[in-house]
C-alpha cells in the first residue's frame, strides 16, 4: 500500500514537473568591454512576459519562473544599448549576455507646442508649421503668426522690422538674409527663434536697452557640422526656357558657409535675395545718378509673369569663428543679367491753363544689361568690455541700357521714334568702424565711417524729339563723385538707472558734378553744362538721457550742431559761396510696457537747410522726354515733424500677435518742385513757394494661429489721408489723397491630403484737387490668390493656383485671371517637378495709377503659357 502511494506521488510529481517546470536562469550582463550593466532581463513566451528582473550592480541576474512551452525568449535591454533577444530551450542554465552600446531612443513628440515663449525669446516650432509643399525655411516663416514677410522678402515681427538675422547665433549674412530664407531647407531647421529687445553688443548690454528684433534659425543637430549640397536643373517651352541652381552649405561650430549659384531665363528674380534687408548703418553717400532709359513702369504683379531675363547670380558667404568672441565674415556676390521689358504707357497730364488733359502715348522697349559685383568683409570682436566691428564694402557695377520709344500724343501730329543708349557704370567703397569700451559704469562708444563713389553716366538719344534739338543726336554726360567721413563718439554714464550720454559728432559729405548736354542749342551755351562741388560739414553735440521708471521708459535726445555748406561753381568763375547754420534736432521716445504688451510714443523734429539745389543751373536730360534745371537763388528749408503712437500686443500661447498705430507727419518746405510742359517733353522746375503737407495714417495688423486645421490667419488694414500741394505750369494746387486698404491671408490644412493658402488684398484711393472741376474717380484694386496643395500620395504633390487681379479704371479686362499648376514627385534624393505657368495664356496686364491730377496707364507684355520640367537633387 505504502509503495503504491509512493509511486503515485512520484508519478504525480513527475507529471507536474513536465507540465510546468520550474526554471532558473542566471548569468551576467556586460558591455562589449566587459563592464557590468544593470540591464533589464525579461523572459517571454510567445509575446507574453513570464518574468522580469534588473541585473544588480555587478551585472548579475537570476530569474525563477515556470514555463509551458519548450522554447522561450530571453531578452536583455538597457537604455543606450541595443536590445538582444535569445531563443533558448526552456530549462535552467547560465546565460551571459553582452550588449552593444550607442543606441538612442527614438525621439517622439506627439503634441508639440507650435509657439513657446521663454522670457523674451519666442520659439516657432518649424515641424508644426511645415507641410509637404514647403521646401525652404522662407516658405514656413510666411505661415507663422506674428512674422510677416513682405514681397521683397523683408521680415518683420509684429510690426517691427528685423534688425539681425542669425543662423545658429552667428551673423553670416549681414542683412542679406534672403540667402538663408530662400536656400536653407525647411527640413534642416528645428525652430525659428525671435529675440525681442535684443542687444547684440555685449559691452552695451546693461547700459543701452534695445528694442530690436533678432531672428535666429536653430538648426537640427543632423544639419550641423556637415556639408549640404543640392543642385537643380530644368528646361521648358515656349520660348525655350532653362533654369539651374547649385547650393552648398555648411554650419559648423567654428565655420559657416552658404554658396549659391542661380541662373535662369524663366523670369525668376535671383537678385532680390542678394539685397541687404536691414539698415546696417553703412554710410550713405548723397549723390544720385539721375539718367535713365525709358522703361515701362512696374505692373505690380509677380515678376516671373513679365520679366524677360537671362540671369546668373553667384553668392559666396563665409564666416570664420577665430575664437568664442571673434568672427571674420566675407560676403561676395556677382550678378549678371539681361532684362528685356516691353509695354505701353499712357500719361494723362492735367493742364490747368486749358483745364484739359494732354495725353502722351508711348510704346516702350528696353533692355538692361547688368553686371554687378559686391564684396563685404567684416571683423567683429564682441567682448564684455570691448566691442570692435569693422565692415568694408566694395561695390562695382558696369551696366548699360538700350531702349526704343515710339511716342504719339493728342496734341502733336505723327509719331516720333527714338533710340536711347545709357552707359551706367559705378564704383563705391565704404567702411564703418565701431569701437565700444565698457568698464562697468561707463561705456565709451566711437563710430567712424567713410565712403567714396564714382558714377560716370552717359545717355545718348537718337531721333527727332523736339524743336530744341535740330541735330540727330542728343548726348548727356553726367559724372558725379561723392566722398564722406563721419565720426560719432559718446560716453555714457549710468547713475541710478538713468543713463546719460554725451555724444560728439563731426563729419563732411560732398559731391562733385560735371555734366554736359551735347546737341542741344540753347541761347546761353553755359546752360548746357554743370560743373560744381557742393559740400556740407557739421560738428555738434548730442546729449541723450534715458530713464526707466518701472514699466515706463523715456529717452530724450537733443542734438545741436553747427553746419557749414559750400558751393564751388566752376561755371560761375569758380565762385565759392559759404552758408552757416545752427541746427537743432530734438527727439523723444517713450514706451510703456504692460507685460507682453507695450505702448510706444515717438516724436521727432527735424530742420534741414540745403543749398545743393542752387548748384545745378545747367539743363540735364534725365530721360528722352524729361529735362531738369534749377533756377533757385535761395536756401531750401525743410521742417519735419514725425509723430507716432503704436500699441503692440502678443500672447504666444494663444498664438495672437497684433499691433495698431496712429501717425501724423508734417512737412514744411519753402520751395516746391513741379513740371512744365514743353511740347512732348516735361521740364522739372523748382519755385520758391511756401507750402505745408500733412499725412495722417492709421494701421492695424492682427495675426492668429489656430490648432484647428493647423491654420494661420493674418489680417491687416491701413487708412491714410495726405494733404499736399502740387505745382503744374507755375501754379500751386492743393490736393487730398485718401486711401485705404485691407489684406487677409489664410493658410490652412483641412485634411492630411490637402493644404490651402488664400490671400486677398483690396485697396481704394482717390485724389481730389481743390478749385478744379476735374472728375476724380476712386481707384479700386483687388488681388485674390488661392493656392491648393493636394498630397495625392506620400511623395506626389499637386499644386493648383488661381489669381485674380482687378482694377476698376481700365476700359476692358478689368479682371485678369492667372492660373498655374505644378506636380511634384519625390523619390529618394530627387524632386521631379512639372509646372504649367499662365494656363489661361494672358498676354498683357494693364495697371492704372493716379497721382495728384495725372493718370498713368501702363500695359505690360506678359510671358505666354509655358511648361517647365525641373529636377532637384540633394547631392549631400
Amino acid at each position, binding site marked *: 500500500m505504502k509503495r503504491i502511494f509512493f509511486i503515485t506521488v512520484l508519478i504525480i510529481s513527475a507529471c507536474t514537473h513536465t507540465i510546468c517546470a520550474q526554471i532558473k536562469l542566471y548569468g551576467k550582463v556586460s558591455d562589449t568591454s566587459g563592464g557590468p550593466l544593470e540591464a533589464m532581463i525579461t523572459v517571454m513566451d510567445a509575446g507574453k512576459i513570464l518574468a522580469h528582473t534588473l541585473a544588480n550592480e555587478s551585472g548579475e541576474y537570476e530569474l525563477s519562473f515556470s514555463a509551458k512551452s519548450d522554447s522561450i525568449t530571453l531578452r536583455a535591454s538597457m537604455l543606450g544599448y541595443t536590445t538582444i533577444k535569445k531563443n533558448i530551450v526552456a530549462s535552467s542554465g547560465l546565460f551571459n549576455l553582452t550588449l552593444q552600446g550607442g543606441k538612442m531612443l527614438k525621439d517622439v513628440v506627439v503634441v508639440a507646442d507650435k509657439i513657446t515663449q521663454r*522670457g523674451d525669446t519666442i520659439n516657432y516650432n518649424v515641424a508644426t508649421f511645415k507641410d509637404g509643399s514647403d521646401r525652404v525655411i522662407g516658405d514656413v516663416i510666411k505661415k507663422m503668426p506674428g512674422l510677416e514677410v513682405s514681397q521683397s522678402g523683408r521680415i518683420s515681427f509684429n510690426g517691427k522690422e528685423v534688425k539681425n538675422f542669425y543662423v545658429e547665433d552667428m551673423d553670416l549674412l549681414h542683412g542679406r538674409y534672403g540667402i538663408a530664407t530662400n536656400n536653407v531647407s525647411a527640413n534642416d531647421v528645428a525652430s525659428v527663434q525671435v529675440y525681442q529687445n535684443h542687444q547684440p553688443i555685449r559691452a552695451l548690454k546693461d547700459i543701452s536697452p534695445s528694442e530690436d528684433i533678432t531672428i535666429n534659425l536653430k538648426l537640427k543637430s543632423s544639419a550641423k557640422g556637415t556639408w549640404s549640397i543640392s543642385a537643380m536643373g530644368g528646361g521648358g517651352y515656349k520660348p525655350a526656357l532653362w533654369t539651374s541652381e547649385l547650393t552648398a552649405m555648411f554650419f559648423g561650430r567654428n565655420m559657416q558657409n552658404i554658396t549659391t549659384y542661380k541662373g535662369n531665363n524663366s523670369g525668376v528674380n535671383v537678385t532680390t535675395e542678394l539685397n541687404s534687408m536691414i539698415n546696417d548703418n553703412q554710410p550713405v553717400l548723397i549723390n544720385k545718378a539721375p539718367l535713365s532709359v525709358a522703361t515701362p513702369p512696374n505692373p505690380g504683379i509677380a515678376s516671373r509673369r513679365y520679366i524677360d531675363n537671362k540671369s546668373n547670380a553667384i553668392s559666396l558667404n563665409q564666416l570664420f569663428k577665430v575664437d568664442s568672441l571673434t568672427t571674420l565674415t566675407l560676403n561676395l556676390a556677382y550678378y549678371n543679367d539681361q532684362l528685356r521689358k516691353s509695354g505701353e504707357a499712357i500719361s494723362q497730364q492735367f493742364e490747368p491753363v486749358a483745364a484739359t488733359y494732354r495725353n502722351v502715348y508711348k510704346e516702350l522697349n528696353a533692355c538692361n544689361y547688368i553686371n554687378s559685383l559686391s564684396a563685404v568683409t567684416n571683423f567683429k570682436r564682441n567682448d564684455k568690455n570691448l566691442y570692435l566691428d569693422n565692415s568694408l564694402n566694395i561695390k562695382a557695377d558696369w551696366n548699360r541700357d538700350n531702349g526704343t520709344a515710339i511716342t504719339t500724343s493728342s496734341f502733336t501730329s505723327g509719331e516720333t521714334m527714338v533710340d536711347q543708349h545709357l552707359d551706367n557704370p559705378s564704383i563705391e567703397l565704404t567702411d564703418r568702424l565701431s569701437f565700444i569700451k565698457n568698464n562697468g559704469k561707463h561705456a565709451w562708444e566711437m563710430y567712424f565711417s567713410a565712403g567714396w563713389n564714382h558714377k560716370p553716366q552717359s545717355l545718348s538719344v537718337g531721333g527727332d524729339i523736339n524743336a530744341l534739338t535740330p541735330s540727330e543726336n542728343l548726348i548727356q554726360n553726367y559724372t558725379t563723385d561723392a566722398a564722406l567721413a563721419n565720426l560719432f563718439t559718446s560716453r555714457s554714464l549710468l547713475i541710478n538707472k538713468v543713463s546719460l550720454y554725451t555724444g560728439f559728432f563731426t563729419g563732411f559729405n560732398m559731391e562733385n558734378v560735371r555734366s554736359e548736354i551735347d546737341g542741344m542749342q540753347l541761347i546761353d551755351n553755359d546752360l548746357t553744362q554743370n560743373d560744381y562741388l557742393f559740400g556740407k560739414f557739421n560738428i555738434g553735440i548730442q546729449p541723450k538721457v534715458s530713464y526707466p521708471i518701472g514699466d515706463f521708459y523715456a529717452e530724450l535726445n537733443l542734438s545741436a550742431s553747427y553746419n557749414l555748406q559750400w558751393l564751388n561753381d566752376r561755371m560761375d568763375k569758380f565762385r565759392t559761396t559759404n552758408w552757416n547754420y545752427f541746427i537743432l534736432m530734438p527727439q523723444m521716445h517713450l514706451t510703456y510696457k504692460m507685460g507682453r504688451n507695450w505702448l510706444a510714443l515717438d516724436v521727432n523734429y527735424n530742420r534741414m537747410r540745403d543749398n545743393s539745389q542752387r548748384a545745378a543751373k545747367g539743363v540735364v536730360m534725365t530721360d528722352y522726354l524729361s529735362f531738369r534745371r534749377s533756377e533757385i537763388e535761395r536756401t531750401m528749408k525743410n521742417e519735419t515733424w514725425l509723430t507716432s503712437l503704436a500699441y503692440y500686443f502678443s500672447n504666444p500661447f494663444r498664438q495672437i500677435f497684433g499691433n495698431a498705430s496712429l501717425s501724423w507727419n508734417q512737412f514744411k518746405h519753402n520751395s516746391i518742385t513741379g513740371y512744365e510742359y514743353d511740347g512732348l517733353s516735361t521740364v522739372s522746375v523748382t519755385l520758391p513757394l511756401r507750402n505745408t503737407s500733412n499725412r495722417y495714417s492709421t494701421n492695424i495688423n492682427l495675426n492668429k494661429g489656430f490648432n484647428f486645421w493647423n491654420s494661420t490667419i493674418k489680417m491687416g488694414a491701413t487708412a491714410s489721408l495726405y494733404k499736399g500741394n502740387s505745382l503744374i505750369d507755375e501754379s500751386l494746387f492743393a490736393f487730398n489723397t485718401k486711401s485705404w486698404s485691407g489684406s487677409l491671408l489664410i493658410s490652412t490644412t483641412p485634411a492630411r491630403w490637402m493644404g490651402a493658402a488664400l490671400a486677398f488684398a483690396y485697396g481704394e484711393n482717390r485724389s481730389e484737387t481743390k478749385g478744379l472741376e476735374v472728375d476724380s474717380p476712386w481707384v479700386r484694386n483687388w488681388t485674390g490668390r488661392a493656392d491648393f496643395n493636394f498630397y495625392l500620395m506620400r511623395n506626389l504633390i499637386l499644386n493648383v493656383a488661381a489669381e485674380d487681379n482687378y482694377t476698376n479704371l481700365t476700359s476692358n479686362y478689368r479682371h485678369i485671371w492667372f492660373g498655374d499648376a505644378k506636380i511634384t514627385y519625390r523619390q529618394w534624393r530627387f524632386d521631379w517637378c512639372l509646372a504649367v505657368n499662365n494656363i489661361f495664356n494672358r498676354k498683357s496686364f494693364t495697371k492704372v495709377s493716379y497721382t495728384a491730377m495725372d493718370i498713368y496707364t501702363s500695359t505690360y507684355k506678359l510671358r505666354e503659357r509655358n511648361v517647365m520640367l525641373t529636377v532637384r537633387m540633394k547631392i549631400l
Partner: protein
Amino acid sequence: MKNKIKLVLHLAITLISILPVSLYAQRKDTDAKVSPSNYVSATKGRERISDANIRIRYAFNAEDMKDKSTWIDEGQLKIAPDMTDYSSYFIEVNEDSLAHWFEVHGRNRAYPPLRWLEGYRNNKWIEYQYSQITTKDGVLTEWATMPRELDTENLYYTENLPLFDWQIESDTATICGYECMKATCHWRGRDFTAWFTPDIPVEYGPWKFGGLPGLIMKVSDNDGIYTFEAVAVENGNFPIYAPRGSKYKQSTRYKVWKLQRDLNVDYLKTTGHSVFNIKLNRELTSRRHQYTQLELE
C-alpha cells in the same frame, strides 16, 4: 405585482451601479490658489542635482489631447543614471521664462501679470502638479509644494519605492510612437491599468508609478478619474533641480496626504483663512465640489 417590484429593484440597482461611473475626471475645482512666482523663486535656490539624458513628458488629465489648455498639467519624467525626477513641465517653463525676463529687465521691474504658465485654470493649485517626486537608491521622496496661503508650510517625506502587484496581460497598443503592453494592478485603494513599453527598459513611470519591465507610457485608474499619457520622448540634456531645499519641512506620507486632501475639500477651513460675508451674515466656506484622491489610502 411581483414583476413590478422586480423592475423597480432592477432600476434602482442599475441607477446605483451607474452612479460611481458618473464620477468625472478630476479637474482643478479647488479654491486653492497658487502662490505667484517672484524674483527670488524664479532666480534663486535652484540647485542642479543631476543631469538626465532622457525626458518623457505626460499629459495629465487631458480633456483634448491636442489642446494643452485643457490639460491640468504636462508632467515630465527625467531619467538620470543615478535618479529620476517627476515634476511639472508647465511650471519649469514658466520659471525659466520668468528668470530670463528678470535677467533682461532687472529685478525691480514689475513682471508680466500674465505668466507663461499653460494649462487648465493655471492659477489654481493641485497636488499632482505642485508635488515633485524623486527616486534615488530605492527611496521615493515627495516634495509637496502647498498653495498660496500655506507656502511656508511646504513638506517632504520619504518612503521605500512603492510595490505594485502588476498583472501583465497580452494586449498591445501604440502610445506616443512606442509599442506598449498592458498591465493591471490594485494599488492604494484603486484599480489601475498601465501601458508600458519594453523598448524603453526602465522600471519607471509618471507620478509614483513604476515596477514594470519597461517605461509606463500611460496609466489611468479604472474609474477614469486620473490619467497620465506620454506625449513626448526626448533625448538630450535635462538638468534636474532640487526643490528649493530649506523651505521644505520633513513630514510623513499620511500627514502630507491628509493635508492635500483637506486643502482640496475645504480650502478656506484648512488654511484657517476665514472670510466673513456681511451680506450673508456668515463665514464663507469653500465651494463644494467632487473630489477624490488618486491614492485612496
